[in-house]
């Protein structure tokens, strides 16, 4: 049902502008630069031409379209809305000045909803940065391209109540090439809500993980129903904000004072298989782990490193309950130790973490990963690809890729360092290997894969 929104055959820009600093220009520019291949109909009473697109003077002149983006201020948006609704399947009114400003704005909002309902058009927003769909090149977001980056196509669908936080998150992950299948900012959520979109992306072949930034649910029970269905097939990660707000409704009761609505949300997530993130980094990190990695239900982790300290800190993070994830370091099988000691790296420490020291080469990694893959005492492998030592090369990415795809065991990669390491992180990302630029982030990604296995166990049971 949202196909016409995600991959529209035609887009109208109502309020198209000749002024490059105006959103009415930026949206057209986005469509041009992101390779949108459908029909584009800019509308502005002045007419003329913008970026090579013919500008229509009146909405009446354009044929029916899949998507209309209204880049006018609130008052004008309301004024043209009837004409737009008559022509459009989906409408994105970008402007603020609606329900978020008070009762008068709320009235405007109700008015556009009423008009849309009458014409059978669906509304995203208002008060939204809109949508960004890398695959179809639809992009309604206003950001300065010289200072930020839009991510490419990927497997993660991102539904967010905050447009700005969503864009910032994508910008920061675009740095190492993380892609998204879709980005949708709900804005004031007058019509289209997170539940419908969650269901849609649950069935969307391009999406492997759905992530949400939510401040308040439209309908919590409905969310749980849909999330329970979807999370059997696809992982869902939610960053739920407003953790500290207290719902003091039943304050005369102990139970009311003990649980704000956040504690209830936490329980609800557990019941419907939703994985919870606490900031924007976790949100996307977990999504990447779940999109690329294999869930594992055991708790024994083998760690491979060429830097001893990295192994020690990792061990703490893996085993600790308080500042860690409460998994276990695997007790390696004697045969594994023998192979590593005798056949692969005689200089290495063959306990877990396997510390191959700075003398390690790409091929040493290959041998160790093979041995760990065969070890019956190991449920998952965390391997550090540290490119700062002389015998390690870019070929290590190929070797890890081989074991990630061919091996039975889930692999998570840690890569610590500056530009070159970041470049390699992008390389892992490109090949669909979950890789992280810090110890803590790598270990938490492992835990999420472990959690996912248990969620599946509970949901399918």
């Amino acid at each position, binding site marked *: 049902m949202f196909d016409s929104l995600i991959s529209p055959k035609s887009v109208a820009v109502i309020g198209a502008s000749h002024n490059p600093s105006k959103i009415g220009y930026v949206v057209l520019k986005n469509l041009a630069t992101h390779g949108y291949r459908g029909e584009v109909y800019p509308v502005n009473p002045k007419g003329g031409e913008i970026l090579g697109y013919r500008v229509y003077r009146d909405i009446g002149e354009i044929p029916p379209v899949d998507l209309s983006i209204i880049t006018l201020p609130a008052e004008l948006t309301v004024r043209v809305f009837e004409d737009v609704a008559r022509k459009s399947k989906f409408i994105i009114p970008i402007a603020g000045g609606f329900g978020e400003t008070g009762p008068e704005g709320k009235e405007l909002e109700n008015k556009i909803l009423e008009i849309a309902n009458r014409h059978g058009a669906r509304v995203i927003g208002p008060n939204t940065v809109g949508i960004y769909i890398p695959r179809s090149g639809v992009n309604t977001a206003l950001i300065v391209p010289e200072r930020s980056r839009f991510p490419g196509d990927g497997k993660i669908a991102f539904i967010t109540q905050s447009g700005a936080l969503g864009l910032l998150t994508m910008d920061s992950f675009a740095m190492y090439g993380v892609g998204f299948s879709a980005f949708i900012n709900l804005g004031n959520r007058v019509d289209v809500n997170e539940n419908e979109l969650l269901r849609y992306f649950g069935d969307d072949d391009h999406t492997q993980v759905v992530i949400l930034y939510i401040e308040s649910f439209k309908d*919590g029970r409905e969310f749980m129903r849909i999330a329970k269905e979807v999370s059997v097939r696809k992982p869902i990660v939610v960053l739920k904000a407003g953790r500290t707000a207290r719902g003091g*409704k039943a304050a*005369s009761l*102990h139970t009311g004072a003990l*649980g704000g*609505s956040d504690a209830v*949300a936490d329980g*609800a997530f557990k019941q419907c298989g939703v994985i919870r993130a606490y900031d924007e980094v976790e949100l996307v990190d977990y999504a990447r782990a779940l999109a690329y990695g294999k869930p594992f239900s055991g708790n024994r982790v083998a760690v491979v490193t060429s830097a001893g300290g990295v192994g020690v800190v990792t061990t703490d993070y893996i085993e600790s309950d308080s500042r860690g994830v409460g998994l276990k370091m695997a007790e390696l099988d004697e045969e594994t130790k023998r192979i590593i000691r005798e056949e692969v790296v005689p200089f290495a420490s063959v306990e877990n973490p396997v510390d191959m020291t700075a003398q390690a080469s790409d091929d040493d990694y290959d041998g160790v990963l093979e041995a760990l893959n065969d070890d019956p005492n190991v449920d998952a492998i965390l391997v550090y690809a540290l490119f700062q030592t002389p015998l390690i090369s870019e070929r290590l990415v190929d070797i890890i890729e081989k074991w990630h795809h061919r091996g039975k065991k889930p692999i998570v990669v840690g890569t610590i360092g500056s530009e070159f390491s970041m470049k390699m992180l992008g390389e892992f990302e490109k090949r669909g290997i979950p890789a992280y630029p810090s110890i803590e982030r790598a270990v938490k990604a492992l835990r999420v894969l472990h959690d996912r296995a248990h969620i599946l166990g509970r949901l399918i*049971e």
Partner: protein
Amino acid sequence: MNEYEAKKFLSSYGISIPRGYVISSEGEIDKLSLNYPIVAKVLSEEILHKSDVGGVILNITSKREAKEAFKKIHGKFHTPVLFEEMVRGEVEVIVGVIKDQTFGHALMFGLGGIFTEIYRDVTFRVIPIAKKDAEAMIEDIRGKKILEGYRGIKVNRESVVDLLLKISKVVEDNPNIIGMDLNPVILTHDDAIVLDAKIILEKSGES
């Protein structure tokens, strides 16, 4: 609903409560057939913290003491008095219900006493819950070791799971319940017994 009504109501769902009677006059105490020691409690919907205001007398071991307790409580509050057998157990837990704006009815479980007061060591699930949800609730609690035989404490986990499932059912059947506090619930070797219960119903006319 006063405490006695709330407990009788829960008892109709097979939830364990102490044996007890409501006494309105001193004379009725002669017919009281409870095993000592017993406890006397003021029976009132208005008084929320009974023991803070002297509305609870514990460890009554004879008819004579029972009469004194009645006179004391009845004289002070002019209400009936609930007499119950005292239950000794291993550890106290708290079970509650709230109606959340977003998710609707939710069930809470936690360890009693300082664990809830200071550490807020409680967990919630949205009602209705399944058996595995009830089990997961016990697992959620940071102090769960206490329920696993810590320092010789012996309780029956299944009785907790059973109580949580029953409360979920109570609320499912009675959606006009907007709040519930079972505090404390005492866990014995084999059972979970509700020692105090408050149930708040939606006022008719509200929605």
